[in-house]
């Protein structure tokens, strides 16, 4: 295995297929750590990590925090409210201050697209993008891919359709880049008012009707629909959205084969997804959450300079 990662993980657009496989393969041995009685290995002992969340997040922040703690890193959480950020500090100043404190890694979520790259270009520490605006959410893309690989046994040739608000979704973009690089067939489906311009030119097909997507796909990754989209006039109502685009058992029953159902969370039950689908036998939504910790452990480990072939040994103890 010759692939290595760059200093930062900003997005899957910038990774090669080899680099993506490296992360997914490195995540495999880390899955087991979370199944242990004592969920801790010393791989990142002595490393300091800041979790810098300019936007609210529960799942992603906790997932990163567990990944860090299970690798024995020292972590600090900074949320936007109550920090210097809410007092008008610029992103540049935040970056300079982190640099001055000699942090090893920064995990950042920010509302502006490009914020992770902006930070990464200005500090020596590793930067991991935990979601930047409408741009990318690379660890979500990776955990989605790991889950597909677990469930289907491969990624190449699998037909994955992202359903919902593609325009405003960083999850959609990371999935799109990662999956196409590993040879999956990717489609998007949603109201045309929520599909971004030129999306087909990125090598994906676009469905305007969810029935067509269900007929075509092996896997549906159903995206959260935010209430704000109705308020901003992209769709008339959540009620109608469910009627026209909702992933329901009735629609899935008409599919030629059972579909694997994914959702990056948090779910709006009864809006983009029917509860019976989310809780049904083909849902891997909670596997995604479990895989999230392993993928993030792999990313942290690799960016800290850990050697992939030693990942197995690293979780044993002695070797760091």
């Amino acid at each position, binding site marked *: 295995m010759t692939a290595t990662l760059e200093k930062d993980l900003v997005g899957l*657009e910038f990774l090669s297929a080899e680099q993506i496989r490296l992360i997914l393969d490195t995540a495999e041995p880390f899955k087991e750590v979370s199944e242990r009685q004592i969920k801790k290995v010393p791989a990142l002992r002595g490393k300091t990590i800041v979790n810098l969340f300019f936007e609210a997040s529960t799942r992603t922040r906790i997932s990163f925090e567990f990944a860090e703690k299970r690798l024995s890193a020292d972590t600090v959480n900074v949320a936007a409210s109550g920090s210097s950020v809410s007092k008008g500090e*610029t*992103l540049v100043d935040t970056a300079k201050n982190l640099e001055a404190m000699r942090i090893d890694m920064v995990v950042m979520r920010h509302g502006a*697209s*490009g914020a992770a790259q*902006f930070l990464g270009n200005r500090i020596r520490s590793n930067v991991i993008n935990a979601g930047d605006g*409408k741009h990318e959410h690379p660890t979500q893309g990776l955990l989605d891919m790991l889950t597909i690989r677990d469930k289907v046994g491969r990624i190449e040739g699998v037909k994955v359709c992202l359903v919902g608000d593609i325009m405003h979704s960083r999850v959609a973009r990371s999935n799109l880049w990662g999956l196409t690089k590993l040879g999956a067939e990717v489609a998007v489906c949603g109201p045309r008012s929520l599909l971004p*311009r*030129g999306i087909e030119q990125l090598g994906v097909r676009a469905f305007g009707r969810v029935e067509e997507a269900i007929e075509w796909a092996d896997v549906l990754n159903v995206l959260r629909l935010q209430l704000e989209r109705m308020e901003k006039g992209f769709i008339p109502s959540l009620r109608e959205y469910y009627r026209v685009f909702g992933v329901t058992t009735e629609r899935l029953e008409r599919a030629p084969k059972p579909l694997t159902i994914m959702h990056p969370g948090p779910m709006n039950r009864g809006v983009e997804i029917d509860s019976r689908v989310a809780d049904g036998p083909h849902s891997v939504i909670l596997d995604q959450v479990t895989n999230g910790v392993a993928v993030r452990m792999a990313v942290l480990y690799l960016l800290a300079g850990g050697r992939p072939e030693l990942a197995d040994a690293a979780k044993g103890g002695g070797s760091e």
Partner: protein
Amino acid sequence: MTRPLLLRGGRVIDPRRDFDQTADVLVVDGKIAEVGPGLTGPDGADVRDVRGLVVAPGLVDVHVHLREPGNEDEETIATGARAAVAGGFTAVCAMPNTDPVTDNQAAVGFIVRQSVRAGLARVYPIGAVSVGQQGEQLAEFGEMVGAGAVAVSDDGKPVVSGHLMRTALEYARTFEIPVADHCEEPTLAAGGAMHEGLVSTRLGLKGIPAAAEEIMVARDLLLADLTGGHVHLCHMSTRGSVELIRSAKARGVRASAEVTPHHLVLTHAACEGYDTHAKMNPPLREPADVAALREGLKDGTIDCIASDHAPHAYDEKDAAFDDAPFGIVGLETAFAVAHTELVLGKVLTLPELVRRMSTVPAVLFRLPGGTLAAGAVADVCVLDITNPWVVRSAEFQSKSRNTPFADRELVGRAVLTVVAGRVVHEREGRPTR
């Protein structure tokens, strides 16, 4: 009175008279006295050897932001006027989106006084269309024109109300001034940071569709037709706008249009990597738009080049793309960018470029200059069009550094700028090659 000035042996270009030949230019008492071969100046004349250089009427920029009053940390009328003459401009028109807004005769008079005090380029104020640029009540055009305004505009913002635009075009006719509009349908452009297209989709940035500009261009052309007023369309950026203007002009609508050097040269690809120096409004568009703008400039559909010089403090641009302000500085690179890309790129001849950067804008805004005819004001630039130079933003005369052309090698530069017969800019160490 300043000393007489004799520019000897340059290639003299005066598009107004279709003049392009080697000649001497004699300036006396702030006016062009004579243009011809073998001139001898009066005793005591300042005689300059400009062989190998181009002598042209001083460049005229009908669209700059000089930030005074209100944001003197970014630019002042004096530093903006210094940047202008360094770029070969002898006259610039200052947009009224200052703080407070230049929407009354006292504010217009302040700009005139500051420019006289600076004593560099002529700075002509543009007054606001509406009080406070709020888009509601018409500003006092008559008093502003009396104080020195040469046009009205709410630039920085569109004139959203169709009724207000109509009234402005009608009312402006009394004073024979253009109404310059920043064409942007605000509900389509809201929250947008760059051109809506493949690059914005990839970068996850909200796009501004071409239609946001074209809807307002179409409206303004219809209102100009309705009222007989002169509408001047600022910084055109889309192929659709070019088409709309072309067909309106064919119908005889009183419209003029400008384009910036950057919209003629760069595309939305410049935003890759979230480079905030490629963030401007209107945004950089697609290669087909650039091609149409060049074609429009060539055939006169687009009348002139204007820089939309928009200084911003360095730390404002050092931000996430969404958070950075729109705009770039342009006075010190406009001619070089246009010459390198359009003249050396065989889109325009040099006399055609001078026409679009001097003669035509002077005519459109009824300004002195734009010609080297005997008796005209002696606003002159001497241009080196052979020696390449590298853009060093740290060396700008402007207070701001926000340019997407930093470190580019360009050909074309003002080595001498003369306003009213007085040398106001001279580049030292000019190569003699």
